[in-house]
């Protein structure tokens, strides 16, 4: 007899749990949609956001990089190629080009920390895509010049 009893209880309990499950989905159906309709709306980027690195821009459109190669040595994936030259014998070394291949960078942030001059910081560009595998290769100095001529 109790076999029949728990058969009925099983059927009732089962249908009840299915019904409450559907109740939950119905409730969620009328909840506001959480989609951020990119590219119309955009999520606010956190202040500490880590995009590809860029050179810190001083007032005169200049940068602080002295091409000491510290970032070049510490980068685990060999992303950075930097070259400097001395305009005058006694003056400090002045960076000439600063190539990075963002397609090999793992955004660990060691270069930004280790730079003695504080010449690097994280950019906030997160929407890069391109048609060739060299999409990540940029010369940061040229980019600095063209953004603020």
């Amino acid at each position: 007899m109790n076999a029949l009893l728990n058969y009925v209880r099983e059927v009732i309990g089962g249908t009840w749990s299915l019904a409450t499950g559907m109740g939950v989905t119905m409730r969620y159906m009328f909840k506001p949609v959480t989609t951020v309709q990119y590219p119309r709306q955009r999520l606010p980027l956190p202040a500490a956001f880590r995009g590809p690195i860029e050179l810190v821009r001083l007032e005169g459109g200049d940068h602080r990089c002295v091409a000491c190669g510290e970032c070049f040595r510490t980068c685990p994936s060999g992303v950075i190629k930097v070259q400097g030259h001395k305009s005058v014998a006694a003056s400090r070394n002045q960076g000439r080009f600063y190539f990075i291949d963002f397609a090999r960078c793992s955004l660990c942030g060691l270069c930004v920390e280790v730079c003695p001059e504080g010449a690097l910081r994280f950019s906030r560009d997160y929407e890069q895509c391109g048609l060739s595998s060299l999409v990540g290769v940029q010369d940061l100095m040229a980019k600095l010049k063209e953004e603020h001529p």
Partner: protein
Amino acid sequence: MHRQALTEDTFYLNLGPQHPSTHGVLRLLLRLDGERIVECQPILGYSHRGHEHMAQNRTYLQFMPNPCRMDYLSGLMYNHAYCLALERACGLEVPARAEHLRVICAELNRISSHLLWFGAYLMDLGAFTPFLYAFDDREDILAILGLATGSRLTYSYCRFGGVRDDVGQDFLEGIRAFIPKMRARLKDYDTLVTRNVIFVNRTQGVGVISPELARAHALTGPCLRASGVGYDIRKAEPYGLYPELDFDIPVRAGGDCLDRYLVRVLEIEQSLRIIEQAMARLPGGPVKATGVPQFITPPPGLYHTSYETARGHLGIFLAADGTRVPYRLKFRVPSFGNLGILPKLLPGTLVADTIAILGSMDVVMPEIDR
């Protein structure tokens, strides 16, 4: 691959390496008799990237981004474990505020890892909607962790002797807003999934693991705690802030898929408790020990560190030779042991159970293949 002429009526089925529910690239070579499984042989290595070989030719600091890419679901915990290993070896002291921030971020990472597992597991069983709800919560956590660390998945947030930089008020506000929302959402998951009769039938009594079998196969983490053995490194060998926090370890005795599910869901609740306690007593002060050299050189010798990640016991074995570069670095990865038990569980079950058992093991393939 040997492939005899199929005289008998069993046939080989390759589940993977590209399959919707192998969570990465795992290949299960199944011998099927109709729908029932006769023998199962997991074949690994499809996402082997040579982390341990890389460790032998870069300095300790340069190896920093690698641990987060082994188990990208608990990236911050791997990062924390790697820094812990080096701090113990070199005897570095970590300021109190950094310890608190590490514990808060690690527990948030554990919740996001369990949520992703919850969504993926339900998708394996056929319900697609909980996956979207779990991802919705996970996005909130990633937004909060983004405020502290700046990235969503591969954090590299901890450094030797502390964390990279301090957190602002919006990080703390985000967590305070997140915790009640998560608790309400856990109640909805309870009614939608835990009490659902189809889910219970699909997972109860499936893939039962006895405590002895679990110990023989070196199972750790939620899979072990679902078989009745309450072994959690945060309690067995406490590190960081855990000795001073009071939280308990959910342990279930059944050892089947349902209990592995329940252990993880209860662990989300415990992690919320830990975060609340750590937030309440968050001290001020520096977040990074001063005077840590850029190239740390731990004294020669063999070191071991244990850490409790979302999947179990992560052991880091370090053979240091006193130079800047590790001589040998071995990661004892929890999923490697957890997956090793699969060939023992599967014979005799159906294909649908294979997916349920594999899903309940919560394996991440790049962590196994290193």
